[in-house]
């Protein structure tokens, strides 16, 4: 069976700078993969290419069997994406914002209301429905960001640092939420927080200076050592030119 996410020899160049250099990996249906790396390693750039937001310099990305360059619409129908900064219209209420996202994501009219109710319930923001997003705390905004990514019941969920800037309590809630989504959705989430990967993901893809330096299950990666040691060892290596 074809993997849900198939990335082959992906490259992104900004002028002289190579942000992503020849990355290949695959994610199977139902897997949660952690995309791990220091700041500036190319995590966000890679994720943005998966969503079709950024064009690829070379290589290919296939999501649920569709090529992101040749069939961007088909890909966009099947993904839920939460960027590093949740894309929220601060002047809208939570309910009307989610309804808008449901509309542009192509959720059929008669299912929209139910979908909005469901994602609000999943993300524990049902009692915030009538609140203006601009008045919500960071933790709630993050949840609304996650709710909008879930609204079209996507095959693939792409989460860029979903717990960044949250307090410990909120981090645990988001983690549990992500875990509960596994199985139905294929999830790829980026982070530079190591325990996060160990706790939520099946597998870690470690990336440094635009290259993949490890792609293994959590257990294999940390066999006998702490994940910190592995991470530091892998990311301190001078990138071969």
């Amino acid at each position: 069976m074809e993997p849900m996410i198939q990335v082959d020899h992906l490259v992104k160049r900004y002028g002289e700078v190579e942000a992503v250099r020849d990355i290949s990996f695959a994610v199977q249906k139902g897997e949660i993969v952690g995309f791990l790396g220091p700041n500036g390693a190319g995590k966000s750039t890679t994720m943005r290419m998966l969503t079709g937001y950024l064009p690829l310099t070379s290589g290919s990305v296939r999501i649920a069997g569709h090529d992101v360059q040749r069939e961007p619409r088909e890909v966009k129908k099947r993904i839920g994406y939460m960027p590093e900064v949740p894309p929220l219209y601060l002047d809208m209420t939570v309910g009307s914002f989610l309804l808008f996202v449901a509309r542009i994501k192509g959720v059929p009219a008669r299912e929209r209301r139910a979908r909005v109710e469901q994602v609000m319930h999943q993300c524990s923001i049902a009692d915030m429905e009538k609140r203006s997003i601009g008045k919500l705390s960071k933790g709630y905004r993050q949840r609304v960001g996650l709710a909008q990514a879930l609204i079209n019941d996507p095959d693939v969920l792409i989460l860029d640092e979903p717990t960044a800037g949250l307090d410990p309590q909120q981090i645990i809630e988001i983690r549990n939420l992500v875990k509960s989504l596994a199985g139905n959705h294929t999830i790829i989430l980026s982070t530079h927080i190591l325990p996060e990967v160990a706790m939520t993901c099946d597998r870690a893809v470690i990336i440094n200076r635009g290259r993949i330096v490890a792609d293994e299950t959590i257990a294999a990666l940390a066999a006998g050592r702490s994940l910190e040691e592995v991470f530091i060892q892998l990311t301190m290596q001078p990138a071969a030119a």
Partner: protein
Amino acid sequence: MRNVYFIAARELRSIFTSPIGYIVLTFFLLLNGWIFFGLLNRFNFMSFLYMQMQNQQALMQMNLNQMVLAPILQNMTVILVLTVPLITMRLFAEERKMRTDELLMTSPVGIGEIVLGKFAAAFVFLAVMIGLTVLYPGLLFHYGNPELGPVVSGYLGLLLLATCFIAVGLFTSSLTENQIVAAVSCFVVLLMFYLININSISMSGASKDVLDYLSLIGHYEDFVKGVIDTKGLVYYVSFIGAGLVLTGVSLESRKWR
């Protein structure tokens, strides 16, 4: 096409919940009302004067269309140059600043649909704004008997002209994430097209024709006189089309930077 409606509806709602929409609307109506009042005052004063002087000939020359309606329609264009950039500045610049463009661009929505949606929202707002000024000719029709033709063609021209302004504003807003930069550059471009044929009076031949044709206001004068010229219609429609296409290109190219 449904997506165009979804985007336009959200945008309109945003315009009507933000203070800037109401500030612009108030400013526009206040200024126009004041000018209308001034023009009407002058008309009354002159009528009164000619009556006192028993100058029948001059009284016959008094004409509501020429002395009140044409000038108010002309004045509105100047006020629109000042107000349209304030409406259009946020359209794309704010999306980019707030990073909500990432939502639109990763949804199954085409760039053309986004551009048209934004354009439609600004157009509806402007149509409401201009529509409210129909009160002025309405009053004149109630108390006097001006000619209807030039009013209708004048308003058609005004709407077309204002739509051209929107096309410019949409484009400048797509270039930056700074709303002030978007507004000021829209304003500069509009003024340029407003004044482009100011020196053509001393020119002749092709250069004069070209400058006169390019002037946004030049064609408008025909509409105010009651003439709907296809040349003007074609000019306005292609101007709007060019603005929309450029906006699409600008959004598309942003991905490559």
